[in-house]
C-alpha cells in the first residue's frame, strides 16, 4: 500500500510542479512583454543579443541546412523515381523544408546552441548575484537583461529559419541537378508551380516566429529560475534543451493542423 501511495504522490507532485512552473514561466513572459519598451528604446542592447543568439548560430544552421537539403535531394530522388515523378524533386525538397524542416530543425538547433547559452548566462548571473545587484540599483533585470534577449531570439529565429530553408533548397538542387542529372529547368519550374507563397512560405515563417518565442522564453525562464549553484545551472541548461525540443514538436503539430484546416 505504502509504495503505491508514494508513487502516486510523486506523480501528483511532478504534475503540480510542472503546472506551477508553466504558470511561473507565463508570468515571466507577460512581464517581459510589459517591460519591452527598454529593449527597443535602447536598441543597442537588443542588437548585441541578436549577435550572440543569431549571428553565432549561423554556422551551425547553414551547415545543417546544407546537409539536410542534400539528403532530401538524394532520398527524395530515388523514391520519386519509382513512381516516375523524379522531376518533382524540387517540389519535394522545397515543401519539406518550407513547411516543416526549416522552422522545426532550426528551432531545435537554436534551442541547443543559443538556448543553452542564454540559460547558462542568466543562471550564472543569478548565482553571482548580478541580478540582485541590478535590482538593488533600482534597475529592473527583466527590462535590461531578459527583455533584449527575448526580442533578439524572436527576431533571430525567423531569419535563421529562412536561411535554413534557402540553403537547404540549394543543397537539394546541388544533389538533384549537377550530381544526379535531373533537369535544371524542371527543378525550379515545378517548384514555382507548386509552392504557394501564402500557404508555404508565410506559414513556415509564422511557425518560426512562434518557435522563436517558445524557445527563447523557455531558455530565459530556466536560467532565471535556476538554483544558484553549479549543479543547478547545468541541470537548467539540460532542461532548456529538453523542454524546448518537446514544446517545438508539440507546437508544430498544433500549428500544422491549424494551418491545414484553413
Amino acid at each position: 500500500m505504502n509504495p503505491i501511495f508514494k508513487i502516486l504522490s510523486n506523480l501528483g507532485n511532478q504534475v503540480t510542479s510542472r503546472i506551477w512552473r508553466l504558470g511561473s514561466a507565463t508570468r515571466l513572459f507577460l512581464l517581459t512583454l510589459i517591460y519591452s519598451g527598454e529593449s527597443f528604446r535602447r536598441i543597442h542592447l537588443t542588437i548585441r543579443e541578436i549577435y550572440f543568439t543569431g549571428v553565432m548560430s549561423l554556422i551551425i544552421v547553414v551547415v545543417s541546412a546544407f546537409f539536410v537539403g542534400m539528403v532530401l535531394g538524394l532520398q527524395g530522388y530515388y523514391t520519386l523515381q519509382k513512381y516516375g515523378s523524379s522531376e518533382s524533386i524540387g517540389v519535394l525538397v522545397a515543401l519539406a523544408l518550407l513547411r516543416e524542416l526549416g522552422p522545426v530543425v532550426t528551432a531545435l538547433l537554436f534551442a541547443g546552441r543559443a538556448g543553452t547559452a542564454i540559460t547558462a548566462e542568466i543562471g550564472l548571473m543569478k548565482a553571482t548575484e548580478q541580478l540582485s545587484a541590478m535590482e538593488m540599483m533600482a534597475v529592473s533585470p527583466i527590462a535590461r537583461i531578459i527583455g533584449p534577449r527575448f526580442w533578439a531570439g524572436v527576431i533571430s529565429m525567423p531569419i535563421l529559419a529562412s536561411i535554413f530553408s534557402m540553403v537547404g533548397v540549394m543543397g537539394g538542387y546541388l544533389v538533384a541537378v549537377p550530381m544526379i542529372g535531373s533537369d535544371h529547368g524542371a527543378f525550379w519550374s515545378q517548384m514555382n508551380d507548386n509552392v504557394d507563397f501564402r500557404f508555404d512560405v508565410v506559414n513556415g515563417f509564422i511557425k518560426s516566429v512562434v518557435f522563436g518565442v517558445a524557445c527563447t522564453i523557455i531558455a530565459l525562464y530556466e536560467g532565471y529560475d535556476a538554483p544558484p549553484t553549479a549543479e543547478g545551472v547545468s541541470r537548467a541548461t539540460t532542461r532548456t534543451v529538453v523542454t524546448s525540443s518537446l514544446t517545438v514538436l508539440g507546437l508544430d503539430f498544433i500549428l500544422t493542423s491549424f494551418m491545414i484546416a484553413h
Partner: protein
Amino acid sequence: MDKTTLDIWVGLFVAIGIAALMGLAMKVGNLTSNTLGETYMITANYENIGGLKPRAPVKSSGVVVGRIDNIKFDTKSYQAVVTLKIDKRYPFPKDTFANIYTSGLLGEQYISLEAGGDDHFLKEGDRISKTQDAVVLEKLISQFLYNKASEDPKK
C-alpha cells in the same frame, strides 16, 4: 567586440535573412507570377464552376494571362459570377469563349480563354457571354446512364 563591428555583423545577419526570405518568396514560391503588372477586370457567369477557386490561373493557348480575382453568387440569376483579372498586355475580343477546364485528369481547375473574331475588345467591367461550365463528374455519369438506358429499348 566593439560596437561598430557588432552592428555590422548584426546588420549583415538581418540582411541575409531578408534576402533569404525574398529568395524563398520569389524563386521558390510563386510570388512573382502573381504580379501581373497592370490589369483589367472582366466577369463571366456560370451555372456550375465546379472546383474553380480564386487565384486559379486564367490561360489562353496554355499561357497564363491572368488570375481569378473572386467568385460570387448572383441571387437574381442564380448563377456564379466569376471576376477575371487579365493582364493589360492581352486584350480579348468580345466573343471570347471562357471555358472551365481541368489541368490533367484530376488537377486544379482553371479558365481557358479562346479568342473569337470580333473587332471590338473587352474593356474593364465587361462580361463574357460565351461560357462553358465545368465538367461535373456526377452529371457525366448520369448522362452516360441516361444514354445507356435510352439505347436499351431499341435492342
